[in-house]
């Protein structure tokens, strides 16, 4: 296990590596009691992100995808685990150094209405990160801001205006410009297009892709819309109740999903094609409470193919196919008699 980790750490292509990240929120059950119960928002997840790729985190509300995005930037402090960014463990960094490190890692928020300060002009909003990090003279900062606004497809006349004077799509462009202002290496995009109309959504998706090419950015793209994720991401991790159930390249995940949850999730997406008649897997019931996560596999309460072991033992994320990892007992080596096959490939 540790040998495997060490090997991964040495690989220079990985910009970011998450090891056993956990984030528990205490539940206050009374005025004098606290901390005897926890919401396990992120429950022991590991993955790594390659330089220049777009890594998707998908799942339904409450699965912990946004918490993961925030915890890996230390916008909220992780409960346990390590976040290694360019070979440096940022979970151990003191506040001052962390702030410097943040230049390289930025975030774009979902709601373009509440993430921009209504009392500041766009110029001020875009200049603020530069001021905080003491970059450039006033003149240089002005030049940077002028350039930024062009890059995201707005004009310099927009700089004097206030956020309320813009439409949702334009505000999201401003949010993206702000994230770009410090020339980061990594951008965590937390549902950046969910609040936008279809025709505007495609504009912003295209913009994100253009910027990635232009500035060599690495994205962590958090979303619940599986068709957008398919379009923009290179690799995708599917989360359920604070755990990763499957990680694969986009092609692998969409063409041959392995985890029953992924399969059901993909089949639930309505397709804009009236001729398409698909066998839909309707999941029964709802996501269980993250305070009382089911014993064993978290998905077993809704899983159409669950067996006894699923109710007893939590499945580990294991590699089932070239880079394709699944946390499901039914896909583990022994169950499908794949043992010999997998043994040959060195696992």
């Amino acid at each position: 296990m540790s040998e495997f980790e060490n090997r991964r750490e040495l690989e220079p292509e990985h910009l970011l590596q998450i090891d056993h990240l956990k984030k528990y929120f205490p539940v206050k059950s009374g005025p004098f009691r606290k901390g005897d119960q926890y919401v396990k928002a992120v429950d022991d997840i590991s993955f790594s992100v390659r330089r220049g790729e777009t890594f998707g985190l998908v799942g339904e509300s409450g699965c912990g995808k946004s918490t993961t995005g925030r915890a890996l930037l230390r916008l909220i402090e992780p409960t346990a685990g390590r976040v290694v960014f360019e070979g440096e463990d940022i979970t151990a960094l003191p506040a001052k150094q962390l702030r410097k490190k943040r230049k390289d890692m930025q975030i774009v928020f979902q709601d373009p209405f509440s993430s921009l300060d209504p009392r500041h002009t766009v110029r001020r909003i875009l200049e603020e990160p530069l001021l905080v990090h003491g970059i450039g003279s006033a003149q240089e900062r002005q030049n940077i801001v002028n350039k930024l606004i062009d890059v995201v497809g707005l004009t310099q006349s927009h700089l004097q205006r206030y956020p309320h004077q813009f439409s949702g799509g334009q505000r999201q462009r401003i949010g993206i410009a702000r994230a770009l202002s410090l020339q980061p290496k990594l951008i965590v995009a937390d549902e950046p297009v969910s609040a936008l109309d279809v025709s505007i959504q495609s504009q912003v998706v295209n913009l994100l892709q253009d910027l990635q090419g232009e500035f060599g950015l690495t994205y962590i793209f958090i979303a619940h819309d599986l068709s957008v994720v398919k379009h923009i991401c290179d690799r995708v991790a599917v989360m359920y109740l604070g755990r990763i159930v499957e990680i694969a390249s986009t092609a692998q995940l969409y063409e041959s999903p392995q985890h029953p949850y992924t399969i059901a999730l993909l089949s639930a997406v309505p397709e804009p094609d009236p001729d398409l008649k698909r066998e839909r897997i309707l999941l029964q019931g709802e996501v269980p409470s993250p305070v009382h996560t089911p014993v064993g596999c978290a998905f077993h309460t809704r899983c159409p193919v669950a067996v006894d072991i699923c109710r007893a033992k939590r499945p580990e994320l294991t590699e089932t196919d070239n880079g394709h990892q699944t946390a499901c007992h039914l896909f583990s080596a022994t169950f499908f008699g794949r043992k010999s096959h997998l043994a040959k490939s060195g696992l």
Partner: protein
Amino acid sequence: MIQPVLQVQNLHTCFFTDRGEVPAVDGVSLMVNPGEVLGIVGESGCGKSVTSLSVLKLIPEPPGKITGGSILFKGRDLVPLKEREMRSIRGDSISMIFQEPMTSLNPLFTVGDQIGEAVRLHRGLRRKEARRHTVEMLRKVGIPRPEAVLDEYPHQLSGGMRQRVMIAMAISCNPELLIADEPTTALDVTIQAQILDLIRRLNEENGTAVMLITHDLGVVAEMCHRVVVMYAGKVVEEGAVCDIFKNPLHPYTQGLIQSVPRMNEQRSRLFSIPGNVPVLYADMKGCRFADRCPSAMSLCLERLPELREYGAAHSCRCWIHETQEDAV
């Protein structure tokens, strides 16, 4: 010919604001046939929700007002009706499901009280009978342990459950028309699939006509028989669901369909419609879509095209097709 359940003719709904008159619904005509699922699609601000609220006369007045047109429900015009008469229709023969189930349920009453209210009011059922009826409704919409849920408050339920409660409330008087305004927008995909399945079953089993308002083309393709596409307060295209997706006539519909990323194909770039939805004001000239339209002509900026039929029950509001027809 069968009488449509709902026939909206040349509906105008305006909002009178400080910045002037906003024609949110500007001459909309549409109809819903018995047993049909009609989809109304469009982006935010296109007037699809205002249209649906107008049908039930739920437009806050002031600032809004239905300034013209008629809304025929089984041949009877709802526009001149008094509030008292509307009340006897709402929740009885026409009912509505809203987008946000948390804000549309009353937090101070139990689920049972809220669902039972409709049958007690419209059907004159007694408390006990209403309770029995409510349990049946909750069971119908697939709520587990209905007897217990009956005495729970909305905050004790999840989003999907609340939406089921809304639906139970809407169907408790077995309405002839169900208006669903973005019923699944606030829900997750797997829950959305459950709710859509439920609405489809109601339509098929009870023959309830459904007017489904949504911005999600995937939902439209899966649920609807016919589609009305709206843009800036006007109907720009109307037709059978297959015609709309296979052979969209209006440049806006074409752009909208192309800009949705698909699961079954990979494109390097998404199509996008440049610009934003226009701000509406009174006496707008020309086609509302002209400034974003890839094939706009000078004529488009000056005069508004008519909604015209170009095939079996497929109509479109665009000059391109009119001029082509003239040439032929």
